[in-house]
């Protein structure tokens, strides 16, 4: 009965909210706010006592050994191909897998992992109330079609592909925009991964007009060895230095004939094959097989054709391992970009299974994501049922991780009601004027940053190494979140929180419930409602301050700050 539209006061700054609100929309905006407020009032009164979602959540948790509100007693869906190898490995070591995660945990987790965005109230309520058995799979499908999916995964690929204007990558701003746009389009259009890699490796032309050529410009150093290192890291998840000497040298030869040519346009550069050496090249592929490049042939193509062959053991492995690490915080081979003989996968069967599925799906990344996201392994609770140390590496539970810097600041700004992040850059200011409504996950340029992003460990995109991202907590971060005037201001100015206070006036339980739904994407537990209620009653605070404090406590909670 309650309908929230995207763009209303309680909607996420998502697809429909991307354009700046021009002042001519102001009246419509007010009208709309009023309508939304009326809807919220109705909802608060009509549904406060008996909400389908509410009883559903209570039902899910009512079993011994099941931690409410994070778990449910029984799986809502069958196991899939991913689960068999995981479970067989766990059984062999006598490790108990975690319980199924609850619907509330799932909707939050799926949103954060797939689109880097918190679910809005409407999505949470509809999902929790939905009784259809296939609702989780349906949610995954919907999320994969969202614009934020393209933003968020383009950001991840941007880290790997080093999309950055300034030192030490020096793509320069125009090329960064072209490169980022191309990557984002590839994600949104679900370009098969083999074509994606081939385009990046073999394109020739202007860095403005043929964006994938920027791959060869986004390297610290333009010698064949530096490029070979970057290619090995990006597409083979490997450090070239760990290979035998002849293969290291062989790898270099494929990138020994790249020509960079300036044009009269500022920072335009043509990347192409250097046609002048009229000789062929005898070399070896990284697997030791012989490579023969005839005169006039582009060595990059010879390498790319070898790389993306379905039987190439490196290519699919590196990709599935990387994607897995993005969803689970660690690769099956760990670090996810350090694949080598003496760093074996934690679960070889699982890795083989994913490789096969990926190749069979013709390198379709969304199919791969669907497979993993719909698995029981992914949908486990984050609460381990074992204290075996290797349980985490064997994926016996979903590991908690602090939100990415970009995702966290977007979430905080969303709560604040759309105020954008203020960016800085080492280069002169023009490039940091970014509309307020522009999400940080959608930022093209790694050189454009903010004190928050630096403090929370956003990767500098200097090397493409997965370890550049630092999601560990620091004292500064804690001080900032607990007590900075910035966070305090975000709460005080939050339209969402003011709306909640206004609409649920006189109904304290309702207030608490809406804040929980808004910030933690779930119903509060009865004890939580009681605790929060006591805080409201306890003292000298007016309701708005008490609401802000509850919101403050929730955004500072582990449940908010960590993917779980």
């Amino acid at each position, binding site marked *: 009965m309650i309908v929230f539209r995207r763009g209303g006061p309680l909607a996420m700054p998502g697809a429909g909210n991307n354009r700046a609100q021009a002042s001519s929309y102001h009246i419509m905006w007010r009208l709309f706010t009023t309508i939304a407020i009326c809807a919220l009032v109705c909802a608060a009164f009509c549904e406060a006592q008996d909400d389908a979602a509410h009883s559903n959540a209570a039902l899910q948790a009512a079993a011994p050994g099941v931690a409410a509100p994070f778990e449910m007693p029984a799986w809502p869906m069958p196991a899939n191909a991913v689960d068999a190898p995981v479970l067989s490995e766990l059984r062999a070591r006598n490790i108990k897998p975690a319980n199924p995660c609850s619907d509330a945990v799932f909707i939050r987790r799926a949103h954060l992992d797939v689109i880097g965005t918190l679910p809005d109230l409407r999505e949470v309520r509809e999902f929790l109330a939905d009784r259809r058995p296939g609702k989780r799979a349906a949610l995954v499908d919907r999320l994969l079609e969202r614009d934020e999916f393209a933003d968020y995964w383009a950001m991840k690929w941007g880290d790997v592909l080093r999309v950055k204007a300034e*030192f*030490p990558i020096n793509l320069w701003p125009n090329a960064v925009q072209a490169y980022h746009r191309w990557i984002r389009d590839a994600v949104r259009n679900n370009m098969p991964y083999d074509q994606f890699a081939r385009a990046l490796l073999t394109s020739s032309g202007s860095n403005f007009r043929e964006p994938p050529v920027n791959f060869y410009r986004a390297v610290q150093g333009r010698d064949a060895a530096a490029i070979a290192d970057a290619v090995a890291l990006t597409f083979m998840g490997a450090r070239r230095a760990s290979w035998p000497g002849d293969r290291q040298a062989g790898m270099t030869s494929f990138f020994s004939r790249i020509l960079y040519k300036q044009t009269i346009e500022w920072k335009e550069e043509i990347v192409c094959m250097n046609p002048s050496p009229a000789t062929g090249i005898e070399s070896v592929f990284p697997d030791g097989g012989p490579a023969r490049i005839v005169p006039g042939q582009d060595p990059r193509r010879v390498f790319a054709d070898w790389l993306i062959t379905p039987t190439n053991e490196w290519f699919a492995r590196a990709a599935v391992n990387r994607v897995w690490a993005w969803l689970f915080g660690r690769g099956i081979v760990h670090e996810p970009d350090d694949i080598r003989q003496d760093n074996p996968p934690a679960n070889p069967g699982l890795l083989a299974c994913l490789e096969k599925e990926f190749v069979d799906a013709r390198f379709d990344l969304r199919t791969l994501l669907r497979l993993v996201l719909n698995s029981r392994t992914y949908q486990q609770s984050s609460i381990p049922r074992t204290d075996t140390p290797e349980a985490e590496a064997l994926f016996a539970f979903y590991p908690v991780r602090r939100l990415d810097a970009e995702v966290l600041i977007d979430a905080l700004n969303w709560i604040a009601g759309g105020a954008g992040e203020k960016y800085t850059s080492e280069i002169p200011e023009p490039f940091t004027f970014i509309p307020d409504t522009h999400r940080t996950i959608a930022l093209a340029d790694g050189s454009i940053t903010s004190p928050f992003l630096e403090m929370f460990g956003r990767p500098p995109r200097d090397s493409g190494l997965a370890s550049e991202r630092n999601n560990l907590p620091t004292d500064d971060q804690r001080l900032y979140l*607990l007590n*900075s005037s910035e966070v*305090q201001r975000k709460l005080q100015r939050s339209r969402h929180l003011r709306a909640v206070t206004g609409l649920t006036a006189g109904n304290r339980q309702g207030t608490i419930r809406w804040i929980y739904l808004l910030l933690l994407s779930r119903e509060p537990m009865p004890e939580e409602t009681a605790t*929060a209620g006591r805080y409201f009653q306890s*003292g000298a605070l007016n309701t708005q301050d008490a609401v802000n404090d509850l919101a*403050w406590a929730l955004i500072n*909670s*582990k449940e908010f700050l960590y993917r779980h």
Partner: protein
Amino acid sequence: MSTPRLLHPVTRRTALKRLLFGAAGVALIDRIVPLARAAESAGTAAGPAQPVRPACAPARAKAVIQIWMWGGPAHLDTFDPKPDAGNDYCGPLKKPIATNVDGIRICELLPELAKHADKYSILRGMTHGNNGHETASYIVQTGHEPGGSLVYPCVGAVVSLFNGYDAGYKGRVPPYIVLTSAQGRFSEAGFLGLRYKPFVTGGDPAQRQFAVEGIVAAGITHERQQGRRALLHSLDTLGRAMPPNQQFQQLDRCEEKAYDMILGDGGKVFDLSDEKDALRDRYGRNTFGQSCLVARRLVESGVPCVTINYRGWDTHKQHFETMQRKLPEMDKGMASLLQDLADRGLLDSTIVWWSGEFGRTPRVQWESPWNGGRGHYGKCFSAVLAGGGFKGGCVVGASDSKGEEVADRPVFPQDMIASIYGLLGINPDAPLPNPRGLDVKVLQPEDTHSSRAMLREIM
């Protein structure tokens, strides 16, 4: 390019000084002392971020308080009065007052500072010739030429690098504090990066509550802070559901340290209610005065670098009105700081450094639109140094009869900064870590704004 030594006549006095302490002598001292230090530091385990620190003479100063006269104070109306230059130069401020040091006179609006002239020395021959705020600030704050591809760190960041956490600083508050607002691009960590940026307090110490960013939240009482923290803990549902794990334990540790600053003793250093009312009055109940008091408390607690950004000295118009209003404020705050530091035995180990980016035009601009203002003047201006090994009661160098040219002993910002570094035990020739791995030193000797002579006469 000519060196300043050739530009200005070498007096017998300066020649003698150079003979005794000149560049060669300095270099020699720098060679001898550090060997022992280097050997000592080589044994300690160092992380990759640890700066290489070729040591110099042992530090005499533990801390520096920089009073940054933002906008550029008039040298003629502060520490270099020219009562004989006439109305066009002095305006209404024609009667400089004697200080407690024979022969040193300063502006009549600085009676408190006149009682403490034995504690500080005045550099009257400061020069760099640059009249732009940003570029001049950059020169005076960093000791480097503007332009070029690297943005150098300012003095505070360098002190933070060499005498902060990496050097074993264990204080609860960060090692480099700016009161109360940051200056922006040119008072920052430059290429040293975020780790060496100052902690900028925000807030106003003259208010009932000094709202230090992150530590003291304005409008949130101690009780409410405690209540919120209790609420946060009692609503920690996920934390309780999870068995002990590294991720959450680390977050809890960070939280504890944060609350040591917010609710515990860590943030107490910013709480001026501990101080006697009489003392607070003496400093002056204004932002600058109370900032001086906070600076003393910070230094007392071991912070190696405090910058007070003192705004309002860019007096193109209404210059003398502004002087009448602001100089008494500066006088009280700075004099009380010197006195208080001395009373507590801290002045010997604390440098107090007073300077703006430049001085102001000695000739008053009576004409419209200024109607009695002073413009930017980088050719000749004054700076003041006290404590931490700097002798008091001296005047170094001199300007001409109208304060327009340096008449004797020009001091370039780099010389002054090198001297400050020297007393803090920072070798001006030490390499600075930088993102390109270039060979970059704390100070570049080939800069034109250097005479390569430290202020030996007052050290």
